[in-house]
C-alpha cells in the first residue's frame, strides 16, 4: 500500500519535472542571482551588470542590506511607493465593486439591455493597453475631449487628468474591468436559480438574497478578481508610464528609471523585490481564501 503510493508519487514528480526544470533554469536562477546582487554580491552572473552600474553597495564576503537602506531611505521612492499603494487599492476596490454590480445586474435581469451591457463590458479586453492609454490621454489631457466639451458647456475649470495619477487609476480600472466582469459573471451564473428561489421562498427580500446567498457563494471569484487586479496594477508599467506624471509615479516606471535613466541597476532590482514581496502578500490572501472555502464544500466521500 505505502510502496504503491510512493511509486505513484514518484511518477507524478517525474511528469512535472520538465516544466519545473525549465522554470528553475530560466526564471529561478536569474531570481536568485538578482537577490544576491541586491545583497551586495557582484560576482558570477552579476559581474557584467555590476561593472556598469553606479552607486552600488558591494561586499566581498557575507551580505549587506545597504542597497535596501539606500532605496528605502529615498524620499522620492517613498512618494512612489505611496502612489503605488493608493492607486492599487483604489483601482482594486473600484474594479471589484463595478464588476460585482455589472455581474449582479446581468445575473438577475435577463433583458436585451443586460445582454448589451455584458457585451460592452468585455470590449476593453480587445483593445491593446498602449492604444487604451493614448485614448485616455486624448480624453483627459489639458487639450483633451472632456475638457473641450466641458468648456463649451460652460465649465471652464474641468480638471486636467492626463499625466496625473488619476489618469493612471482610470486606465487601470478600464484595463481590469473585463476580467472582473467575466470572472464575477461566471461565479454568479454558477449559483443555481433554485438556490435564489429557495431563499425567496423562505421570506428573503432580493437585497437579502444578494447578501446571504450570492455574496458568500461568490467569495472565491471576488478574491480572484481582487488579488489579480491588485497584482496587475502593482506591477504595471505601460499604463503608468504612458499616462502618469513624471513623479511620483508607480514603482513600475520608477524601476525602469533606476535601471536605465539613472544607471542604478542594484536599486532597480531592490524595487523589483519590494514589489514582489507586496504581490506575495496579496497572493497569500488568495491561497488562504481558497483553502477556507475548499474545506467546507468538499463533497462527501
Amino acid at each position: 500500500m505505502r510502496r504503491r503510493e510512493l511509486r505513484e508519487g514518484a511518477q507524478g514528480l517525474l511528469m512535472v519535472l520538465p516544466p519545473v526544470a525549465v522554470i528553475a533554469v530560466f526564471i529561478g536562477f536569474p531570481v536568485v542571482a538578482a537577490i544576491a546582487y541586491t545583497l551586495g554580491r557582484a560576482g558570477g552572473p552579476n559581474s557584467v551588470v555590476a561593472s556598469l552600474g553606479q552607486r552600488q553597495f558591494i561586499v566581498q564576503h557575507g551580505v549587506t542590506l545597504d542597497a535596501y537602506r539606500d532605496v528605502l531611505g529615498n524620499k522620492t521612492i517613498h512618494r512612489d511607493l505611496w502612489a503605488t499603494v493608493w492607486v492599487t487599492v483604489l483601482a482594486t476596490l473600484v474594479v471589484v465593486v463595478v464588476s460585482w454590480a455589472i455581474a449582479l445586474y446581468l445575473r438577475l435581469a435577463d433583458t436585451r439591455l443586460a445582454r448589451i451591457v455584458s457585451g460592452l463590458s468585455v470590449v476593453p479586453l480587445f483593445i491593446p493597453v498602449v492604444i487604451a492609454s493614448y485614448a485616455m490621454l486624448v480624453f483627459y489631457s489639458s487639450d483633451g475631449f472632456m475638457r473641450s466639451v466641458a468648456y463649451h458647456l460652460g465649465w471652464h475649470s474641468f480638471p486636467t487628468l492626463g499625466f496625473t495619477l488619476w489618469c493612471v487609476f482610470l486606465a487601470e480600472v478600464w484595463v481590469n474591468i473585463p476580467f472582473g466582469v467575466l470572472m464575477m459573471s461566471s461565479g454568479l451564473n454558477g449559483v443555481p436559480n433554485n438556490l435564489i428561489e429557495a431563499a425567496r421562498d423562505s421570506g428573503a427580500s432580493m437585497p437579502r438574497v444578494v447578501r446571504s446567498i450570492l455574496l458568500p457563494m461568490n467569495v472565491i471569484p471576488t478574491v480572484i478578481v481582487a488579488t489579480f487586479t491588485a497584482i496587475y496594477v502593482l506591477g504595471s508599467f505601460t499604463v503608468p508610464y504612458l499616462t502618469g506624471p513624471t513623479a511620483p509615479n508607480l514603482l513600475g516606471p520608477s524601476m525602469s528609471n533606476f535601471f536605465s535613466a539613472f544607471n542604478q541597476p542594484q536599486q532597480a532590482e531592490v524595487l523589483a523585490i519590494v514589489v514582489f514581496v507586496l504581490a506575495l502578500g496579496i497572493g497569500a490572501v488568495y491561497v488562504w481564501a481558497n483553502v477556507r472555502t475548499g474545506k467546507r464544500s468538499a463533497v462527501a466521500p
Partner: protein
Amino acid sequence: MSTERRLDGAQQRAEAPASPAPERTDVGLQIEHVSKDLGGRTIVDDMQLEVKAGELTCLLGPSGCGKTTTLRMIGGFLIPDRGRVLIGGNDVTKMSPDKRPTAMVFQNYALWPHMTVFKNVAFGLRLRKLPRQEVSDRVAQVLELVGLTHHVHSYPARISGGEQQRVALARALVLEPKVLLLDEPLSNLDAKLRVRVREDIREIQQRIGITTVFVTHDQDEALSISDRIAVMSGGNVEQYADARSLYREPETTFVASFVGAMNSYEATVVPGGLELPGKLVVPCDDLSATGDGTFEAGVRPEDVHVSLNGDGAPADVVREVPRGHYKEIVLNAGPNEVRAFVSADLPPAEHVRISFTRALLYRDGVLQRSSAPVSV
C-alpha cells in the same frame, strides 16, 4: 409566533383586491381558471383545482404537461397570465414568494452549500428576527420531526441524498406554511429509499395536517400517498379523484392508459358481451354503457377472466410472466392482444377461454356511462 404574524399580514394585504369570499377553513388551496404562456406556448390552460385543507394532492402527468409550471404559480415564482390562486380563501395570485404562506421543496433540494444543516433550516426563522433560543428550539424540533438528529452542523455536501432531502423538507416545514409544495422530491433517491421517504413524508404530512401539493410523474408514488390525484395532460387536469376511482373509473382514455395497465380495443356492444375486431365475441357482465356503433373499450388485466375450459372466447397463450403472487399472461384472441393478471396457481396451457368481468366504454376519449349499471 412571528411566523403567524407574517402570514396574517400577508393575508390582510391579499384580502383587499376582489376577494369577496369569506375565509373558508375547509379549503386549503384553490386554482381558478389559471393559464400561463411561456415561450409563446400555452403551458397551463384554464386549469382548475381545489385542495381541501390538510389534504395531500398529487399532480401526476407525463413530462412537459405543466406540473412544475403549476406548482411554481402556486409558490409565486411565476405569475399566472389569467386566473386566480387562492390560499385559505385569500387571493395570492400576484404576491411574491417571500410574502406567500407557501413553502417549496425543490427537486434537487436547493440547499445552500455555504450554510450548515442548522443554518439552512434556521435561515427563514432568522429573517423573522426570532430570538436565538427560539430559533434553535424550533430547528431542533423540526429536524426531529423529519428524523434527522445528527449531522446538524455538517455542510450539505457532506450528507447523503436522503438526508439532504430531509433537510429540504425541514427547511420548508419550519416556517409553518399553509401550503407545502413538493416538486418530484424523491426523484434523486434510489428505489428503496424512495418508497421509505415517501411514506415518511405522508406520515409527517398527516401528523401536522398540512395542505400539500406533490408533483410526480410516478403513478405508483401518486397512488400510494395521495388523498386525491389530479392527472394532468397538456396543461390541464384530465381527472381529479382519489386513487381508487382514478383506477377503477378513469374518465378519459388518457387517464386509463396513464394510470395502470389497460387493454383497449375497438368494440361494439352485442347481446351478452363485446364484439372485438375479428368478429370475436367476448362475454362481459359489466359494461359502463350500451349503445350502437363502435366504442373504445378498456379492460384492466385483472378484469380478464381466464379458464381452461368452459364459456368464453377462445384465445392462445403467447407467454406467461411470473409476477410473484400472481402471473401476467399475454394472449392472442383472434387479431387482438390481451393481457391478463391471473392467479399464480393457474396451470400452464396453450389454449384457454376468456371473458371480461368489467369493461369501460369510451367515445371520443371520454368515458360513457349509462344512468343505471348495465347488465346484458
